[in-house]
């Protein structure tokens, strides 16, 4: 604990401009290495791929299966199709990614809220923990493909006043379904993380459960909550992308991956554009949660044991 605290302090002190640039440099180097690996394998690998028995271990290296990196990059700047008003591919991909990010963000928010509420319920009432926790765990074993049509069908029956269930809401619900799990587990651990010592101290102050929650349990749960929120963001993105496909929602990156893949044989470089878009989507989602972590730095200090 003390060693970790010390390293943490040093990192905070040293996290100057030069370190940040070195990180950016390392990130770029990683991308470059990936591109080199791609092109290297494409250059020396057999055109039919590496096959062991009947199993293809490494992909075919034809231009259809693995277009050149520069072809993929060039294709990004060209129009989507031959129509005169067609957007460049990169713009279409970014728009689709932004749409999916929006849906995933709604799912994330709903999931985080539900996860936190479940964790609070389980923390407050011991019996709730034994009653709810198994169901929380069980919920994640249901395959996404199975629940997506169900959610859409149930959603379609919801209608009151001017409100009408939209397709994107079904996608957000599925994203939330995947996002709440790590939050509820992480928050439950975090809320229970204060020492008996701290709990006794707050009890000696004769204040209620809510004040203890706000001043002790929630701040103490931040180190547990941040990784959970990051996992939830990744899950929400995956959930949104997959749910778009299974529900058939237009406008998002998931649907775009399927659409562009259909033109794969004629326009192989285009297939990779929305996949790159999905990667960017994941990175942005992770980055947003990292920003949240920066805002909560104060609560991530480790206490050196006395």
């Amino acid at each position, binding site marked *: 604990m003390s060693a970790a605290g010390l390293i943490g302090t040093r990192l905070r002190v040293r996290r100057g401009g030069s370190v940040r640039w070195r990180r950016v440099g390392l990130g770029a180097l990683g991308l470059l290495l990936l591109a080199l690996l791609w092109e290297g394998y494409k250059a020396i690998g057999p055109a039919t791929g590496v096959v062991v028995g009947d199993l293809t271990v490494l992909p075919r290296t034809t231009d259809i299966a693995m277009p050149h990196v520069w072809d993929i990059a060039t294709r990004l700047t060209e129009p989507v199709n031959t129509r005169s008003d067609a957007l460049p591919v990169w713009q279409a991909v970014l728009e689709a990614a932004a749409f999916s990010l929006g849906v995933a963000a709604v799912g994330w928010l709903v999931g985080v809220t539900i996860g936190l509420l479940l964790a609070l319920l389980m923390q407050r009432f011991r019996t709730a923990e034994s009653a709810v926790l198994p169901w929380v765990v069980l919920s994640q074993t249901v395959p996404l493909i199975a629940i997506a049509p169900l959610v859409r069908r149930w959603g379609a029956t919801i209608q009151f006043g001017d409100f009408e269930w939209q397709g994107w809401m079904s996608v957000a619900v599925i994203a939330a379904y995947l996002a709440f799990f790590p939050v509820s587990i992480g928050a439950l651990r975090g809320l229970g993380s204060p020492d008996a010592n701290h709990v006794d101290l707050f009890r000696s102050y004769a*204040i209620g459960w809510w004040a203890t929650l706000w*001043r002790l349990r929630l701040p103490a749960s931040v180190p547990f909550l941040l990784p959970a929120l990051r996992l939830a963001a990744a899950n929400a993105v995956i959930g949104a992308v997959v749910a778009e496909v299974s529900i058939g929602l237009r406008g998002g990156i998931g649907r775009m991956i399927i659409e562009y893949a259909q033109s794969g044989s004629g326009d192989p470089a285009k297939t990779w554009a929305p996949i790159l878009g999905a990667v960017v989507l994941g990175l942005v989602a992770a980055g947003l949660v990292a920003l949240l972590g920066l805002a909560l730095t104060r609560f991530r200090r480790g206490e050196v044991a006395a």
Partner: protein
Amino acid sequence: MSGIPTTGPVPIGVPAVAVAAVDKVFDTKAGAVTALQSVDLTVAPGEFVSLIGPSGCGKSTLLRLIADLDQPTTGTVSVFGKTAHQARIDQDYGIAFQQAGLLPWRSVRANIELPLELHGVGKAERGSRSSELIELVGLTDFADSYPDQLSGGMQQRVAIARALAESPRLLLMDEPFGALDEMTRERMQTELVRICGETGAAVVFVTHSIPEAVFLSNRVVVMSPRPGRIRDVLAVDLGGARGDELREDEHFFAGVSAVRELLHGDAAPGARARGVENR
């Protein structure tokens, strides 16, 4: 301990702590464990009383009963004439544990202000009170530091300042110096004697160090284990102005020997005289 500048008025004749005929039985999976048996103890206002004994003698349990962190199975615990529960609601005591238990996300000042903040004391008043206490425990240069930047001794001083924040008339301390090295420990003891002199608070102090108990206390309560009982109470009272020179004093050594003899009765529990414990 005259002149009580920072604590409230103490009603004449009402003891700070009165423990009467207390038993504490814990129900464990292995069966009922008697942690305390027929314990009686009275602590006068402004008095420093140490509880000493081997592990398992129930000294921490007794402290927790006084703090209303646990309830006695039978018997009564009263603090300043109220039930322990009411005393906790009224914030009549401050408490410090073996682990400093500071909140790592709060600065030294914010940690000391925690109880004040939780009880709705205004910002200005909090600030002046914490400045006072920071000076009292000698951490003026560290007011804005965080717990992970402090040594163990400094953290413990913050914890003591926090316990004193609401000017309690009673301080409950559960081996607060147990995790400190010997040098820091002696310095902290000297400081605690000074702080208690300045605030006039009564103290119930759990320890397993004989010299510590003798150095600090007006009375030392010697406890024996299985079941936890008070074996004897020894009046020490080395005087109000206790400094480091006292550690070389013959009265100090006499006190240490006396407590040690009382404790060593434990070595042969089967052979111990029942008469010793009839308190």
